[in-house]
């Protein structure tokens, strides 16, 4: 029996605002337990929420970037349930009437542009963190830290538009890039800054009725999402093949063992008794506020990708260079006036390597090597006035300190040897030292030219311009110059 999968994703994006969603505690990461807390986010009696404007700004930016409709009046609601990491045993979220509806995320998948539609985006608060049971004396206990309680989250729900796990992975990769691009979140899944639950069902191929869906939680990485969804699709298909039924359930994915465990829950556990939050007025977002958010939007990643492709680069390059807004901008600046493919290659290999090794942001790179300086380096590579090895050396110096190309060469006492006057003696010397290869060349084995060029390069300490060396050598060999 052939099946088709139907997958929807529910993503939570942790915002990197300075303060929490409903109180003024710092929203940062890594502090000692229960030190970023106040009466509001600890759920102390008498405390009240007040909404953070920057979190709404972030939601508007994301919604506008994705083409969602922004609701002028949206409602905060309480979602009521008991859990130790919940300071109030209700979460302030949005239920009916969320801030953003609709929209779609554009993703390049295997060379084709795909659009994955969204249902909604809304604002809510994060819970605290609870930890697995451990021993305290002779008892088993769990610990709870409320530093994270109240940090702003955006919940983004897709339509059930994915058919295969690879689409889910591509979507999440693009979403992660977007939230980083907009600077609203660091989107690191391992740190829980981007989380994803998947709703999965299967139905017989060729039919339209959807199957019963299950929910998978605890997918902590993009790879985890792919594998968890794969495992669940397989499980459902196996179940149906064996004549069983799919029960609605919540499953936890265990990445270490690549398996799914069913969460046991009581029958009425999910009656959240949503009602509008009486402690907060309607969230009113007027046209002026929306325009302000729209004016802050940078050129979006997929637009940058198209710019690179329009310059003649392949989609692969366009995608790599469009990982970061700063990098894309820098790349385009560098490409204004130098070879596009050359620039792309240098950026994708040398520059990205440095960023990774030194843990630099593209902004840090730009501060170190302004676009104009990099452009200059590349221009000299392009016109062959800097041989490859020397160019790489200069690049290394640029990473470590200031200085234009000429300055750096001067400072390090490196001279590029490019004149016939300098190189003729070296050429003659090599021809004299290697009569065998010379004879082979003259006998028709033109490939030995490369060897001879290499020898001259070695003699010059890598400072000779190879193209010039090659020209001189060829002339000497073909002419039958002295020393032959």
């Amino acid at each position: 029996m052939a099946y088709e999968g139907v997958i929807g994703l529910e993503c939570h994006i942790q915002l990197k605002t300075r303060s929490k969603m409903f109180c003024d505690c710092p929203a940062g990461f890594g502090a000692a337990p229960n030190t970023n807390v106040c009466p509001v986010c600890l759920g102390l009696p008498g405390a009240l929420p007040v909404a953070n404007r920057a979190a709404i700004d972030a939601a508007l930016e994301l919604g506008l970037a994705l083409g969602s409709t922004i609701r002028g009046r949206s409602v905060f609601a309480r979602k009521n349930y008991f859990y130790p990491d919940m300071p109030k045993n209700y979460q302030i979220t949005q239920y009916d009437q969320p801030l953003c509806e609709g929209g779609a995320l554009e993703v390049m998948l295997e060379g084709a542009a795909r659009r994955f539609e969204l249902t909604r985006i809304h604002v809510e608060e994060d819970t605290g963190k609870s930890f697995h049971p451990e021993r305290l004396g002779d008892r088993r206990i769990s610990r709870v830290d409320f530093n994270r309680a109240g940090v702003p989250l955006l919940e983004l729900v897709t339509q059930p538009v994915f058919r295969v796990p690879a689409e889910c992975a591509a979507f999440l990769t693009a979403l992660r890039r977007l939230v980083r691009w907009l600077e609203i979140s660091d989107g690191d899944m391992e740190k829980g800054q981007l989380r994803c639950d998947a709703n999965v069902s299967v139905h017989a191929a060729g039919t339209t009725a959807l199957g019963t869906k299950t929910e998978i939680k605890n997918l902590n990485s993009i790879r985890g999402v792919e594998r968890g969804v794969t495992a669940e699709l397989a499980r459902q298909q196996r179940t149906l093949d064996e004549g069983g039924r799919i029960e609605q359930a919540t499953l936890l994915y265990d990445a270490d063992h690549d398996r799914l465990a069913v969460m046991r829950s009581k029958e009425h556990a999910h009656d959240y008794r949503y009602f509008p939050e009486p402690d907060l007025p309607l969230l009113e977002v007027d046209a002026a506020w929306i325009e302000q958010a729209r004016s802050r939007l940078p050129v979006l990643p997929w637009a940058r990708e198209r710019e690179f492709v329009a310059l003649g680069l392949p989609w692969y390059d366009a995608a790599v260079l469009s990982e970061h807004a700063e990098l894309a901008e820098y790349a385009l600046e560098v490409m204004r006036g130098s070879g596009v493919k050359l620039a792309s290659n240098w950026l994708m290999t040398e520059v990205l390597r440095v960023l990774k090794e030194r843990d630099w942001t593209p902004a840090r790179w730009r501060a170190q090597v302004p676009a104009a300086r990099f452009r200059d380096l590349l221009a000299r590579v392009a016109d062959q006035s800097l041989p490859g090895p020397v160019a790489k050396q200069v690049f290394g110096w640029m990473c470590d300190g200031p200085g234009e190309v000429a300055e750096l060469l001067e400072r390090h006492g490196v001279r590029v040897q490019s004149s016939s006057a300098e190189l003729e003696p070296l050429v003659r010397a090599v021809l004299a030292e290697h009569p065998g290869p010379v004879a082979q060349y003259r006998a028709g084995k033109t490939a030995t030219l490369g060897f001879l060029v290499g020898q001259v390069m070695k003699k010059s300490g890598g400072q000779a311009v190879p193209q010039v060396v090659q020209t001189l050598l060829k002339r000497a060999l073909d002419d039958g110059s002295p020393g032959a």
Partner: protein
Amino acid sequence: MTIRREDVERIAELARLEIPEGRIERVAAELSAVLDFVGALSRLELGTEAPPRFAPAGAPLRADEPNGRRLSNHDALAMAPEAEEGFFIVPPIVENLEP
């Protein structure tokens, strides 16, 4: 009676309250009496639009700045029934079980 035993058990579960077996019927009767009284509302003509909000509109949102009412770890834990090394301590949380 509007509220039956199963209703009391269900809502007690949701509210994390334990009603002793012997009291369930009595609680059902008390709640039913109140709900029957409340049924008077069905006599009013009320329409079907969304009700208005009662929180006054127009209050500006909060600026994104930290360090207003932050508590020290000591104060945060001062009233905790059980605390250890900066954390609140609770009975063990079993991952796939609703508490």
